[in-house]
């Protein structure tokens, strides 16, 4: 026994009370939870981790047939497969982690009724598990990129120095999905409406993001809708860094990063408030 483990349980704690020591004590648990989330996705499947690649690949192929072959939508000189695949995997990271995080509290309600652990590990483990899936998909993108560069004589895309900001953009996406996800998770524990709203919202949001189209095609009148969306700036910036397409201004990027940060901080605070006695209402 040591004083280090002394815990005070009290009524009416403040919104800001985080048990930071617990995050340290339970760090091995976080690792196991991430692993569990990741492994559980392909347990009892024949194709295993291949599933992480099949979905975006098929989506990209459909987009190529639909938008390039049928509608002849230009892709800023980037081979259509690469153009769509890059947009799809970045969007998937956001959308998959957001929907997993938003349900993390509800899905683990039974667990929360029986054991204590830092509840923030629920959304955070979902985030990391989605990040790993994204990294696998990013490797496929890199392989495709290389294949085009080596075999296609007309291929003239090249990454530029902005590529050093890749981790920053991924972090921004992480903050955004964690923030929105924790907001929705907290609200869903009380009102199931938000679950339906999330699914609808994500579908609409996808169309407002430049996944299947380039920003050049959007009429100047409506560009603000795309640019006001923090997911767009990440998709556009990543594409610009790896393919050399048109970049977006730093002002828009800074605003987008700021918005993601604020959403994340408020979401985590709200989640922390709700988790304290959510098992009473869930």
């Amino acid at each position, binding site marked *: 026994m*040591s004083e280090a*483990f*002394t815990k005070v*349980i*009290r009524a009416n704690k403040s919104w800001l009370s985080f048990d930071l020591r617990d995050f340290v004590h339970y760090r*091995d648990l976080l690792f196991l939870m991430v692993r*569990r989330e990741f492994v559980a996705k392909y*347990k009892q499947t024949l194709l295993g981790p291949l599933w992480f690649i099949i979905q975006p690949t098929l989506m990209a192929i459909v987009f190529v047939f639909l938008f390039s072959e049928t509608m002849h939508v230009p892709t800023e000189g980037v081979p259509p497969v690469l153009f769509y695949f890059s947009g799809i995997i970045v969007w998937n990271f956001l959308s998959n982690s957001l929907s997993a995080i938003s349900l993390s509290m509800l899905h683990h309600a039974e667990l929360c009724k*029986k054991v*204590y652990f830092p509840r923030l590990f629920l959304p955070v483990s979902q985030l990391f598990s989605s990040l790993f899936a994204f990294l696998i998909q990013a490797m496929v993108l890199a392989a495709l990129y290389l294949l085009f560069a080596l075999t296609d004589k007309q291929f003239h895309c090249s990454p530029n120095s902005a590529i050093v900001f890749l981790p920053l953009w991924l972090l921004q996406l992480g903050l955004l999905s964690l923030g929105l996800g924790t907001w929705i998770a907290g609200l869903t524990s009380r009102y199931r409406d938000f679950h339906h709203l999330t699914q609808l919202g994500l579908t609409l949001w996808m169309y407002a993001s430049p996944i299947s189209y380039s920003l050049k095609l959007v009429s100047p009148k409506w560009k603000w809708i795309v640019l006001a969306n923090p997911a767009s700036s990440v998709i556009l910036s990543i594409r610009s860094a790896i393919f050399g397409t048109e970049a977006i201004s730093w002002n828009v990027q800074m605003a987008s990063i700021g918005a993601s940060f604020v959403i994340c901080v408020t979401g985590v605070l709200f989640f922390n408030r709700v988790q304290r006695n959510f098992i009473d209402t869930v």
Partner: protein
Amino acid sequence: MKPLIEVQNISKSYRMGERGFRSLRDSFHFWWKETLRKNENRAERQLFQNFWALKDVSFEIKAGEAVGVLGRNGAGKSTLLKVLANLTEPSEGQAILRGRIASLLEVGSGFHPDLTGRENIFLNGAFLGMKKKEVAQQFDAIVQFSENEAFIDTPVKHYSKGMYTRLAFSVAAHLNTDILLLDEVLELGDLAFQKRAIDKMIERKKEGKAILFVSHDSERVQSLCERALNLEDGKLTFDGQMAQGMQHYLTSVNPSIIL
């Protein structure tokens, strides 16, 4: 030495009545009803009331003490353990817990059905706040005590209730925690296992752990715990020797019983 568990005036209330919202629609409906009734009698407007699952409970438990919580269904035994296990906040009061806590409030809490017994021992240990290394040190003892050696690499969803119980209990009992909170966890094991489990708990008690034990099996409670806490309608009505506590409990259940 300071007591391992110090509970000071803990109360926990739940809302009763209509106000168990499931959707926004219900919320608006309720709000609308409230607005319409604004001019009516306040007492009538009260659609819900507070239910005190625990009211002003205070006690201390020292190292090396095993305490049995006695009381009828709904007396607040499980709520008390939930509050102490930090699963839900008390409405009033505070509790100080000095040491690491292992709570076993239901069999197999924290087990993942798709993972094997081996993986679950590590996962469950981590849920109880243990490092991987600490679990690894106790791994063989845990498996041996649970008598699941042959099935340790089988997903636990294929386990029987008894195997599940034995494994879950073994993890909690072997880990190096200072405080053990147990809520009716032995009922699903067979008699031989229950006996071994109680012996194990007595051993832990002698090592200086504090144990808070809820069970409706009076024989088990009496063999482990020397002290009783009686709860009635959320209030602590007795705190003292187990024999007297049991007497108190039995008379409260059926006043005609005289031991």
